[in-house]
């Protein structure tokens, strides 16, 4: 195969520059007069998060007016992954509220918005960009930005362009919007997950109902014990191919054992060393194999399941543990509200016994996939020449400010703008959303997926294939990991 890297600085140079940019302490003041990081990340804990919530008042309209006048007239097209039938009702309400609020703030900016399914938006975006009909603005999952930036589809865009400061956002989030030393987006909200369990099933299995498994080895043992003692499935494994849910659940396990896809867990990753065939990755894969094949303590359907397929079994008391967002609780409440009779009673019992805890740690670390979404502005060359930069900046400023960075993250996420943690809306979230403090405290363990264009291929195809090859017995655990590592080396030509 003939392959040629584009000429320019090496990955090492640009990524080191990017890390320096992100880690720099000399962040200029934003247009709102804020300097430096607005929160103390070194002391991040559920207690600290509660302490700072409600200490900042925000006037979003006034803040936006400093960037783009409120009477500005313009048109923009916007693509995003909006609420679906599987989303909790509150997400639908907030989505509607957001657009109403933007229309009120900027009554003369028309937004042609389109909402797509999570699993289809990226394909449609690639096709649209090739056909010069990409939207002007899009809110995209952070894994997708490097490919779009590498292909030259995205305008350079940094928080300073929309009145914020880079220091106001999670360093890992800023890393995810940086490609070859340049920034191409502004984080909107950032997601982590937690371990969710059914305390009643723990109790029936003779386990402490209020304590999650501390390590991944413990999780494997818990899953087996629950299956043996109750007949119910222990852990809701997800191993479907081409579904984003899969790497978000397997990679934290992999990182915990000291493995990884590349060196994404390093302080300054270079993305030149493949770790899928490392002892840590093989240990994580072996743990999955033990649960699926040896113990049969996870659903047989894991190979074709996404997280959606775990929801009903958990709610009906047939599944004891799963990894998911804080919004999973809201989904359970919504689903239970639609049931009746015995099914409703079982669902209510499961909900009453829901617990959230930190994702288990492994020999190397505790880790969670640092997920999230970023706002990007596309270049006029891929939008068919239609471009209204000021209107686009207005939307991005509005969306990434502390108010809407918090509100849009209401049920399932955390504000990308760190100032959002200090607002009254964060305080209300903490008071009304159960378990939010748990997922919030996982943020410091967040590891972003490799910030390279091949990340989607690695996470959505190669990693699930590795899992399926091992779990079906088509290959041994070691051979499956080795084969996956070869594919990554071939893809990256290293």
């Amino acid at each position, binding site marked *: 195969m003939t392959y040629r890297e584009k000429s320019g600085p090496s990955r090492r140079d640009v990524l080191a520059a990017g890390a320096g940019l992100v880690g720099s302490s000399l962040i200029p003041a934003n247009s709102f007069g804020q300097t430096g990081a607005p929160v103390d990340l070194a002391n991040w804990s559920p207690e600290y998060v509660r302490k700072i919530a409600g200490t900042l008042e925000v006037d979003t309209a006034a803040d936006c007016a400093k960037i783009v006048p409120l009477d500005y007239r313009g048109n923009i097209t916007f693509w995003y992954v909006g609420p679906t039938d599987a989303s909790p009702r509150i997400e639908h309400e907030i989505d509607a509220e957001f657009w109403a609020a933007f229309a009120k703030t900027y009554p003369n900016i028309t937004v042609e918005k389109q909402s797509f399914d999570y699993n289809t938006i990226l394909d449609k975006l690639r096709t649209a960009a090739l056909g010069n009909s990409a939207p002007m603005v899009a809110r995209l999952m952070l894994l997708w930005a490097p490919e779009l930036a590498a292909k030259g589809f995205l305008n350079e865009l940094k928080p300073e362009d929309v009145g914020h400061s880079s220091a106001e956002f999670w360093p890992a989030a800023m890393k995810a919007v940086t490609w070859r030393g340049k920034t191409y987006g502004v984080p909107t909200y950032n997601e982590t997950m937690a371990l969710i369990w059914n305390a009643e099933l723990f109790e029936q299995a003779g386990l402490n109902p209020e304590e999650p498994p501390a390590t991944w080895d413990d999780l494997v043992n818990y899953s087996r014990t629950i299956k043996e003692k109750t007949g119910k499935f222990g852990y809701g494994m997800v191993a479907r191919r*081409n579904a984003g849910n899969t790497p978000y659940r397997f990679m934290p396990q992999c990182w915990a054992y000291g493995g990884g896809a590349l060196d994404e867990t390093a302080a300054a990753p270079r993305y030149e060393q493949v770790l899928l065939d490392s002892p840590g990755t093989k240990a994580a894969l072996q743990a999955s194999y033990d649960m699926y094949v040896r113990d049969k303590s996870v659903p*047989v359907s894991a190979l074709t399941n996404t997280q959606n397929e775990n929801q009903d079994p958990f709610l009906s008391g047939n599944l004891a543990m799963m990894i998911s967002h804080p919004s999973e609780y809201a989904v359970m409440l919504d689903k239970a509200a639609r049931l009746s009779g015995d099914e409703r009673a079982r669902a209510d019992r499961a909900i009453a016994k829901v617990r959230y805890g930190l994702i288990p740690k492994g020999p190397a670390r505790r880790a969670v996939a640092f997920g999230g979404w970023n706002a990007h502005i596309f270049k006029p060359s891929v939008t068919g020449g239609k471009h209204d930069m000021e209107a686009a900046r207005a939307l991005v400023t509005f969306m990434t400010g502390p108010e809407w960075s918090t509100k849009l993250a209401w049920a399932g996420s955390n504000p990308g703008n760190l100032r959002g943690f200090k607002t009254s809306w964060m305080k209300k979230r903490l008071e009304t959303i159960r378990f939010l403090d748990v997922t919030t405290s996982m943020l410091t363990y967040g590891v972003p997926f490799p910030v390279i264009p091949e990340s989607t*291929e690695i996470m959505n195809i190669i990693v699930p294939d590795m899992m399926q090859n091992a779990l079906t017995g088509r290959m041994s655990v070691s051979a499956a990991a080795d084969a996956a590592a070869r594919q990554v080396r071939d893809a990256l030509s290293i």
Partner: protein
Amino acid sequence: MAVMEVNGRRPRRGERRSLVRRIWRQRHDYLYVLPAIAVMLLVIGYPVYATIYLSFFNTPPNLALDDKIFVGFDNYWRIAMSDSVHQATWNTMVWTLWSTLFSFIIGFAAALALNREFFGRALVRGTLLVPYVISAVAAAYVWRWIFHSDFGVIGAISVELGLTDHPINFLDNQTAVLPSLILVNVWKEFPFAMIMMLAGLQTVPDPLLRAAQVDGANAWQRFWHITVPHLKGVALVTILLLLVANLNSFTIPYVMTGGGPAGASEIWITHIYQIAFGRIRFGLASAYSVILFLVMMSAGYFYVRALTRGDKDNS
């Protein structure tokens, strides 16, 4: 201008001049089909050309399409050497042949049953059409839950009846997954064969059947010696159309299993989709598409031959 064959051979010079005169005399007929041809060139011709062109390039995810790298036949060589292609090819053959065979047999049987009068015939015919008209995506999702390896209806019934100790593993089993998907596909496709064969059965001359009955032919003899010969043409067309449809079939395997587990239900179409939109290798996916296109064109050639042979027989 391409030279048309006359009576199966290249025309001589005198004949070519008369051919040109005939085409010129009928130029208005060509003008009438010109808009359709223009649209076809735009929506089919250009994409085919672009796909063939792209198949000679490497398009890694970190390069814009404008920066693609010419690699000649390297993509085709990679396909020939790829293990995953061998599995996808085998799966495609199994999927296509069994889906076509069972769809045709069940559709033909249903057509034979519906060809005679009975009470409620219209209702039965309408009911049997339902799988064909249902959205493939909706059907795939419903069947996915029917076949669900842990909480599916079939598995639950089999445990309840004591047939098995555990729910049956249909979709997460490398051996059972393809037959399960074929079953769903046959359920979806057989009404098409039923409609085609039912239409064909209407052309079988009734007097001939009655005359044969008077002469002492039994039901099987009438079917085999009268009905089947009359249905050869429509049967061939139906089978070819089913073959093409099944080769192209994407929704059921993709929605139900995504090609898993471990590639056990990966067919060419889903494999191409993964290469293009999962791995973002448009050049390689284009090479796959060109190969599939050539296979489909071969099937299309036989389809057109079967159609035109029918026209010649009738003329």
